[in-house]
């Protein structure tokens, strides 16, 4: 079935006009409309996929088909719905511009923040728009995008302006620029949007046909960036990028910005959470509660619920991206992971607009923990949600080691 057909099927399901099984795309559309069969599940998992499949980093982060096929295999192993087959998305543009990188034997390439690309302000003047077909590992990244598109997951990806500014300048120097030399900081952000990201998006559109592109933006999480700073520095360039992309028919937005990530529970601040949600809504152009890297398993979810209801209109709540914390999924135990998912469904999921999201699954996370989180979404997220979820006994699915699964898939 084609993507469009699936999307229509999902919308019909939400209206009650279709009663059959939903495929992942249909489930996603039914969730946006507010009446799916269960929440769709997505995950960030590149390091985990590499580690689980035993693929050397020197292949995984350099060979697009190996990367893509490994991700696809692990995606199928876990039975996820929404494919996010991208890896070190914070590196490509900076690397192509000439940033110093460290290519670890066993790890993802990483920018050397001790020697930033822009050490002094005059260094910005030396930078030129990269050749997206040649520079750095851009050919690898473009090939991954093409492979995604061939599988029907055509989506552009880029490093959002604030995170790319950090990648080029380092966080302390960028913050210093923003406070002490705002003129330079504005020049940097303008260069990033006009000379790097817009040309990159045009290439992505040309090569993959992608109509949507999302910008990774973990550096713009709270408390790295405060809401006041986000208003001054993030929103104008997110808008500049979005408007420019719209002019050539592409929807481009930063994702994950203003992700509330306060580590200390005693400092949990509902007012700041609400401002983060408000700002995120302004960036993406619609209200959506994004729970990403923070300790949402420990925070009070009432603030999320209240905000989502206030902004949800006739559909009950806004869409909610319900991220399950990476450290929780890594450390477990299974019972705790299951309880957290159950609480998400109970407090946030009753209006049918919840997406399950396993945030940046760490390399050596036990696969049983990932299976448990997904099974918990399946079992507690069956719509309509049971009034008393305590009456549903969680059943751990039969565990098949990845190696055995991969062998079966290969016909062995």
């Amino acid at each position, binding site marked *: 079935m084609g993507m469009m057909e699936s999307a229509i099927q999902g919308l019909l399901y939400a209206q009650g006009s279709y009663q059959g099984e939903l495929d992942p795309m249909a489930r996603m559309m039914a969730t946006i409309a507010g009446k799916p069969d269960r929440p769709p599940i997505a995950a960030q998992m590149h*390091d*985990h996929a*590499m*580690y689980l499949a035993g693929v050397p*980093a020197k292949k995984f982060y350099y060979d697009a088909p190996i990367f893509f096929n490994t991700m696809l295999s692990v995606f199928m192993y876990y039975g996820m719905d929404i494919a996010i087959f991208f890896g070190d998305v914070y590196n490509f543009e900076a690397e192509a511009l000439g940033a110093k990188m*460290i290519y*670890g*034997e*066993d*790890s*993802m390439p*990483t*920018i*050397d*923040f*001790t020697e930033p690309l822009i050490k002094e302000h005059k260094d910005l003047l030396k930078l030129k728009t990269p050749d997206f077909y040649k520079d750095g590992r851009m050919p690898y990244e473009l090939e991954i995008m093409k492979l995604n598109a061939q599988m029907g997951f055509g989506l552009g990806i880029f490093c959002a302006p604030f995170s790319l500014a950090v990648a080029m300048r*380092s*966080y*302390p120097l960028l*913050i*210093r620029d*923003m*406070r002490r030399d705002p003129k330079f900081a504005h020049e940097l952000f303008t260069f990033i949007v006009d000379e790097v990201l817009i040309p990159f998006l045009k290439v992505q559109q040309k090569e993959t046909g992608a109509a949507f592109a999302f910008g990774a933006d973990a550096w713009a999480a*709270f*408390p*790295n*960036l*405060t809401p006041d*700073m986000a208003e001054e520095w993030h929103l104008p360039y997110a808008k500049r990028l979005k408007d420019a992309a719209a002019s050539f028919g592409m929807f481009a937005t930063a994702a994950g910005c203003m992700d509330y990530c306060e*580590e*200390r529970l005693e*400092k949990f*601040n509902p007012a700041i959470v609400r401002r983060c949600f408000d700002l995120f809504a302004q960036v993406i152009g619609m209200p959506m509660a994004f729970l990403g890297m923070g300790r949402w398993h420990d925070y009070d979810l009432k603030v999320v619920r209240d905000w989502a209801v206030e902004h949800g209109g006739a559909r009950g709540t806004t869409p909610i991206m319900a991220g399950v914390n*990476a*450290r929780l999924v*890594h*450390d477990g135990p299974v019972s705790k992971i299951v309880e957290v998912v159950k609480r998400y469904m109970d407090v946030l999921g009753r209006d049918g607009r919840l997406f399950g999201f396993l945030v*940046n*699954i*760490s*390399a*050596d996370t036990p696969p049983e923990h990932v299976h448990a989180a997904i099974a918990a979404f399946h079992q507690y997220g069956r719509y309509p949600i049971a009034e008393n979820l305590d009456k549903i006994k969680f059943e751990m699915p039969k565990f098949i080691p990845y190696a055995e699964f991969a062998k079966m898939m290969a016909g062995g």
Partner: protein
Amino acid sequence: MSSTSRVIEQIKQSIVEGDDVAAKAAAEKALAEGLAPVDILNSGIVPGIETTGQLWADGTYFMPDVILSAEAFKAASSVIEPLLKAGDAPKRGKVALGVVAGDMHNLGITIVMTMLRGAGFDVEHMGIDVPVATFIAKAKSGDVDILGMGAYMTTTMLVMKEVIEGLKKEKLRDKVKVMVGGVPLSQEYADEIGADAWGKDALDAVVKAKQVMGVS
């Protein structure tokens, strides 16, 4: 307010406000006025970073404020450090900090280093992308009380386990305390790999460093 008090207050205020240029200038001015380096440290520089820590702990300051304060602390410290005599500054223990092999994220460890120095620890920065063998050699040197490791990627945090296993193999594990920190870590992971302490952030790292050293 006397001139001495004024310049000390300038140092402290510049650090709290995260103004590295002013902090350095004030420290130089204090020296020119004849203040002893140790007094500049104890009356101006350390109280400045302590105030920042407090403002952060109570939710007034956020990460950008702390970063700029840490830069100002470093700027002021760089003026007086070469002039400090042995025994001038209180030392609660010697800490060697490094980011593990394959990892270049130096932001967190820079703040931890600043806060530990502000709390009276003698801190050596071993750098980033530090090989396992270098950590072990540092422990073998006997010149360190706490070995601190930072990792900011889920692949590189696995290197911490290799370091601790290497220390055990070399029969060095009981000669040095091991502290770990970084975004993907947790207390559970620290326990799993056999570290003595996990610092969830820079201030927590100071608390834990004092705990493992048995000092207040």
